[in-house]
């Protein structure tokens, strides 16, 4: 991520917009205000909040990089996941669609201005973010489902070795209209309106070629402490993400996340990663009617602190070897099955990057809330699927129902302005 200087960004944007004759006064004013704010000795809380927001809106994450953004990069507060199916009649149309997708994603993630067109023409951008599309930490991660590699486009031989249609695991209730897809877009940003705008614009860029199959919106819980390291809570109120592998350790990421050369994977897949998405309905009312003791035993952690049962600190090692009978942390507790922390299971670890979802009520009057579980891993069978099979035994299965998602492959990032994500597939 490259945090852009806020004043520089706003000033430059104002210049750009000035050239197109839109909103000059407003933007120049905003830039001037930002400058004056920076020099003020004391700031009110409201001023600080405004400034923080301006900083965040001005922050951009590079689109072109060896690995796609939105995987190891900072997990933003808001997300939209959109699965698309290709209706392109031939290979070259598909190429056009994928190229357009990357081009538009690049421009939106880096921040652009809404250009003016002939007054009789529909505006080229919906404009819901105003005359300037601030980058707002936006990332668009593009991934492909197994169905893209069927006979339609002659891509059978290019299918990443481990990419298959996500099976039904025991206790799943996958709905066809919420599962699989040829292309998955993971749109993550700081603000909800940025994500909403991005989805709208990206879909516009591929209209007639890629058509939506399902979509779900996600949000992050706020970091509420008590320490800056404390992880956020999911909608069962337990902290999520505590045992994620260290994304700043490149060697570990090569072992767990990125596809390496050899091993039967096609060359284009190297430096990419498998993305697993599971839309998991959480029956929150049911959960809320369960005693705290049972809730904590199901998870294996204290609800308040996030510490493993018997411990005091969220980051404490649960040291299962000292508890072989499960007297402290039950043998079927979620954390114990998900990550047994043995030498044999070390290479099964995955990188989770999930979001809460909240989409109204169901027919029975219950809140339709849950988790968009998102995980990246180098080998689905060795990692995610192995963990998921173990989790079939956990007691929490009664309180959750996986209803959608899919297996996808997120290839390496685009190499530069002329390149696009997935170009390696068509060489």
């Amino acid at each position, binding site marked *: 991520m490259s945090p852009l200087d806020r004043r520089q960004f706003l000033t430059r944007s104002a210049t750009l917009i000035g050239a197109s004759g839109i909103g000059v006064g407003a933007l120049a004013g905003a830039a001037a205000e930002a400058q004056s704010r920076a020099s003020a000795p004391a700031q009110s809380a409201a001023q600080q909040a405004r400034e923080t927001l301006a900083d965040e809106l001005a922050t951009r994450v590079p689109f072109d990089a060896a690995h796609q953004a939105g995987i190891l990069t*900072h*997990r*933003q507060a808001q997300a939209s996941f959109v699965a698309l199916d290709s209706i392109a009649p031939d290979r070259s149309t598909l190429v056009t669609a994928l190229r357009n997708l990357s081009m538009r994603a690049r421009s939106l993630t880096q921040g652009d201005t809404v250009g003016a067109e002939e007054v009789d023409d529909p505006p080229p951008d919906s404009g819901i973010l105003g005359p300037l599309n601030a980058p707002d930490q936006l990332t668009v991660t593009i991934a492909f489902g197994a169905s893209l590699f069927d006979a339609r486009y002659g891509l059978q031989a290019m299918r990443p070795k481990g990419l298959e249609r996500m*099976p*039904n695991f*025991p*206790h*799943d*209730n*996958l709905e066809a209209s919420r599962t699989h897809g040829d292309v998955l877009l993971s749109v993550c940003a700081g603000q909800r309106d940025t994500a909403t705008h991005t989805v709208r614009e990206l879909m516009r860029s591929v209209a007639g070629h890629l058509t939506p199959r399902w979509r779900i919106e996600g949000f*992050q819980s706020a*970091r509420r402490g008590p*320490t*800056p*390291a*404390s*992880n956020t809570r999911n909608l069962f109120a337990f902290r999520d*993400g*505590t045992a*994620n592998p*260290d*994304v*700043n350790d490149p060697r570990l990421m090569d072992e767990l996340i990125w596809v390496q050369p050899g091993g039967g994977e096609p060359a284009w897949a190297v430096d990419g990663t498998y993305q697993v998405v599971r839309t998991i309905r959480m*029956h929150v*009312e*049911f959960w809320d*009617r*369960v*005693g705290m*003791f049972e809730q904590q035993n199901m998870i294996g952690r204290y609800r308040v602190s996030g510490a*493993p*049962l*018997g*411990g*005091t*600190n*969220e*980051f*404490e*090692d*649960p*040291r299962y070897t*000292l*508890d072989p009978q499960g*007297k*402290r942390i039950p043998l079927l507790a979620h954390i114990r099955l998900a990550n047994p922390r043995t030498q044999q299971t070390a290479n099964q670890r995955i990188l989770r990057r999930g979001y809460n979802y909240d989409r109204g009520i*169901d*027919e*029975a*009057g*219950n809140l339709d809330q849950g988790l968009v579980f998102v995980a990246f891993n180098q080998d689905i069978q060795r990692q995610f699927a192995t963990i998921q099979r173990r989790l079939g035994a956990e007691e929490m299965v*009664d309180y959750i*129902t996986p209803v959608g998602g899919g297996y996808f492959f997120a290839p390496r990032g685009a190499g530069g302005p002329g390149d696009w994500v997935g170009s390696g597939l068509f060489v």
Partner: protein
Amino acid sequence: MLPLGAWRICHQLVTEPLRSCDWREATVNRLSRLHFCNRAARATVVVSRVCRPACARGLFAAITRSRTKNSKLPSSRTPLAVKPALLVLGAVALLAAVAFLGSALTPAGSSRARRFSVAETASKSAPNPLAGRLSKVYGTNIPASRYGTEVADLEDEGTNIAGEQISELSPLRAAAFTGPEDAYRRYSERWIAHALADTQTLEHALAAGQRTAAMAAWEATWSDYLHLGAVYLNGEVEIANRAIDGTPGELPGGSSDPRFTGLHRIEMGLWSGESLASLIGFDVRMQHDLAKLSGVLQRVEMTPLEYATRSHEILEDAQRDLLSGMDVPRSRQGVLGTAAGLAATEEVFHTLEPLLSGRENTEGEVRDELLMLHGVLASIRARHDGRYPSLSQLGAFEREQLNGYVAGALSALQEMPGTLETKARVPVPKLPAPSQAEEAAEREAEKTAEGEP
């Protein structure tokens, strides 16, 4: 005496019968928050919630008279001196509620009624499991008539009625569950027999090519089977249950998986126009699976906690899987399934009542809520010519009522496992202090997390 706040709310409930349902629901919620356990007032709520304001008004007048007689400001604790008067009022109120529900239980078109209706969840010769019955406070010789505010308030303060200090949970003996579980096992056997008989009716209808009759027989069989609700699903029972009542979502091949058999496979075929003859094989297999389950049930073991937990899980499952339509996407018979689940819940509650007596106020709360849900289901059934409507046929108000009362029942039932604990919780063993190296690793993990967004 009623607490003053509760009295005011009762007044609103019965004097403003034409207010909206939302308002009525909110008011009842306010009342529950006051957490009083006066039977007369609860009964007023019962009656007013099932939309008999006139009847509730009579009760309310009686309560008001009682209040006027006593010049002392109402308090949340019932003074012992007025207890007999309240008991009489309570009895009157309960009788009124039971009489009302009794009338609701008689369906309009009873000749067309299906067998597995709420009215028949208890056999006609048996007493209504939910009617108020006097018994001893469990494990003591204290009459249950003293149960209620007095005992519950004492227990909340950490003493029992003998003045002894008690912990919040005074565990029951595990052996006390043998009787209830045996009773439930016998009840389950009867429902398996019903289910087996109905699978044969289903087979005949399928063979005769009568789709409507087959659908009716399917509904009857499925409802029979759901009466087993409290049977804990593990081991052999789980395997048998998957074959009989499993849903396709759990199978790798979904609805085309060869292991997709049983009730929901037949449901899919019946409601999607599949040939009836092609479904006979599934029915015959189900007869075999049911017979096998019957044998397994004889030796199935359940811990007290599992049995107590099932008392709320049956309706939890109904809310999650049936009222949402998830498990019955074709027939949409979620109301029928919920009624069967309620019957199973009532049976569990009935078997556990002696154990609940005098422990907190769970028994009273659960009875009231089950009674209300029972009444709502009966009134829905009566309005639909004596049969349960499909989820799609439910009116908007019926849907809200049903959703709301199921949620209400679950809020009361959630207390059951805790109230029926057989062992005190032992504290979680402490993690030994980490070594220096472990501590360093923890600090490292924390530092990494700090860098995260």
